[in-house]
């Protein structure tokens, strides 16, 4: 009986190619839209998550000024190296503390020059910022202490100044400072804020202060917290010590700001999630529209086919045989449409993720949901109108025009 239903269903589909294609079109568009959008959204979310984890784990940043992002000072007094040393000594649960001074300058090598940011910091900087060495070496404790004329550069700077040539052991000029490139950092790509993390030159903090900035200022203290230690507690402890060191009275506001990178990360991933949510909603609407399309065509075709149902019943088909035929037709159409939609969606998603520079992340869940939804709509709306027609007396169905 199932075999018969298959023969009959396939014959009907072949006979009504246009109607079959139209029915499938709704499913194809709905399924592929929702899968493409959700897949792209998922890729974006993953990209943000990866970028966040590349920021370094359990990172706190102390910056000068009130509740502002890094690099903004709003007139308050800068930190000193001693601040970082005290924090390192007095706060338990830290892995490393890196005082950071940043200035923008032009790096020059031979006749090439490149405007970039110079970071002055200690050897801890690399650990705290999750920067790894690709070639050469990082500067060591003694080079940091004496303020040696050495620097470690990022991939962008290396390409701009040296092209394809190795930068190691060459001298570059940063304002009055001429320093030897001792290391090349691994590429980290774009940060979640959109800046190029490879556009960087790192020199020992003392070198920076003496030879570039000409002062003892530290703009930023980066603190890496041990795993399993509550960053909230550390944050309070850092604030307490810094308030003492900056001689703030009990009712004074902080003139510095302790930023938990996790909070930023959370904010960013919330934003991407909202975006993914919106994309999914758009996808869901297209799936719904596709579903309504299927519904329409199925309803119309059953009305059209009431006479056919009458003929089949008159010839001796059982109600359930007629229904099974319609069910198989609907199932074949919806699953074929669903499969085409899935393939189309995956191709589109791969192509678009290339264009939008978002990683392609296969989302199995949405593929299954979209497929089941369209299959259900197809089957339900193929089945119920057909049931109504198959319950007519054959004579009544035959009279239907």
């Amino acid at each position, binding site marked *: *009986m199932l075999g*018969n239903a298959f*023969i*009959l269903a396939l*014959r009907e589909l072949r*006979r*009504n190619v246009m109607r079959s294609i139209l029915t499938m079109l709704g499913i194809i568009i709905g399924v592929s839209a929702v899968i493409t959008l959700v897949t792209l959204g998922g890729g974006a979310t993953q990209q943000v998550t990866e970028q966040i984890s590349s920021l370094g784990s359990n990172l706190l940043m102390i910056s000068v000024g009130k509740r502002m992002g890094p690099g903004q000072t709003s007139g308050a007094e800068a930190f000193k190296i001693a601040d970082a040393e005290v924090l390192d000594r007095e706060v338990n649960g830290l892995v490393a503390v890196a005082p950071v001074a940043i200035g923008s300058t032009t790096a020059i090598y031979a006749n090439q020059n490149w405007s970039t940011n110079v970071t002055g910091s200690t050897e801890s900087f690399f650990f705290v910022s999750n920067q790894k060495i690709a070639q050469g070496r990082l500067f060591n404790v003694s080079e940091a202490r004496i303020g040696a004329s050495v620097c470690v550069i990022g991939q962008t700077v290396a390409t701009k100044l040296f092209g394809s040539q190795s930068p190691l052991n060459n001298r570059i000029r940063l304002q009055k400072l001429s320093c030897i490139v001792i290391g090349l950092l691994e590429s980290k790509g774009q940060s979640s804020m959109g800046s190029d993390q490879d556009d960087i030159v790192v020199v020992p903090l003392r070198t920076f202060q003496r030879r570039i900035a000409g002062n003892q200022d530290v703009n930023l203290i980066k603190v890496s917290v041990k795993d399993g230690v509550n960053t909230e507690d550390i944050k309070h402890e850092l604030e307490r010590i810094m308030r003492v060191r900056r001689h703030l009275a009990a009712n004074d506001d902080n003139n510095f700001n302790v930023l938990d990178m996790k909070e930023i990360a959370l904010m960013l991933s919330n934003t991407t999630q909202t975006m993914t949510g919106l994309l999914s909603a758009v996808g869901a609407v297209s799936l719904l529209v596709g579903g309504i399309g299927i519904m329409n065509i199925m309803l119309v075709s059953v009305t059209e086919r009431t*006479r*056919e149902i*009458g*003929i*089949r*019943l*008159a*010839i*001796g*088909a*059982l*109600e*359930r*045989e007629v229904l099974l035929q319609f069910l198989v037709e609907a199932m074949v159409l919806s699953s074929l449409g669903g499969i085409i939609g899935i393939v189309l969606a995956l191709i589109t998603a791969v192509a678009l993720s290339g264009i939008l520079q978002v990683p392609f992340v296969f989302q199995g869940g949405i593929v299954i949901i979209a497929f089941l939804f369209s299959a259900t709509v197809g089957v339900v709306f193929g089945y119920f109108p057909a049931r109504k027609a198959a319950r007519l*007396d*054959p*004579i009544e169905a*035959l009279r239907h025009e």
Partner: protein
Amino acid sequence: MTTTEHLGHSPPNPLLELRDVSKIYGAGDALMKALAGVNLSIYAGEFVAIMGPSGSGKSTCMNILGCLDTPSTGHYFFQGIDVGELSRNQRALLRRNYLGFVFQGFNLLNRTSALENVELPLIYRGINARSRRRLARQALLAVGLADREGHTPGELSGGQQQRVAIARAIVTGPSLLLADEPTGNLDSARSLEIMDLLTVLNRDKNITVVMVTHERDMAAYAKRIVHFKDGLIETDHQQEHEL
């Protein structure tokens, strides 16, 4: 099905029996008695022609005999079984296994080849693809349409469609063939061929034939002629001739 056990009954039990059957359409002022208490017994092996003016209830009667419709009052016994008592599915199985029906309006599937139309009842009988093909071709050959098997109803003339409908009705080798004006759209030469075919089926395959016709010439092939008028049987007599 329980009908098979009644198949063996000898002639005294009619194959078909209408007992005071009426069919009423509409209600109130629009009430219309298409059949007004018909009594009719048809025995296995008979060849019956039903005649009568348009609107006299011939098709209504055929639909009831074909288990497509049920009487408003009265009883229809097919092989001793009260069809009115059967479920929809049981009636469908009766149609499938014992009946061939030629509709007045053909009722072929559109956009479907003649061959596939004729195959259709065989599919529901569960006959395999190869036998289906063979039987369907035989039936088309019998109605003189072997060269048109790939044509859809839209590509066939009215008479050709009618012959496809006849092929579809006889392809299963039914025990009862009900034909509502099977020659209505045919020229006289074709009509005679079809009548010869029905006669052969009736005589050689022992298929009981009930046929509606307006033409005396066609009715002449039958062994018995029943005249309808205003939903009642006016006359009913055997013909003595032998073809």
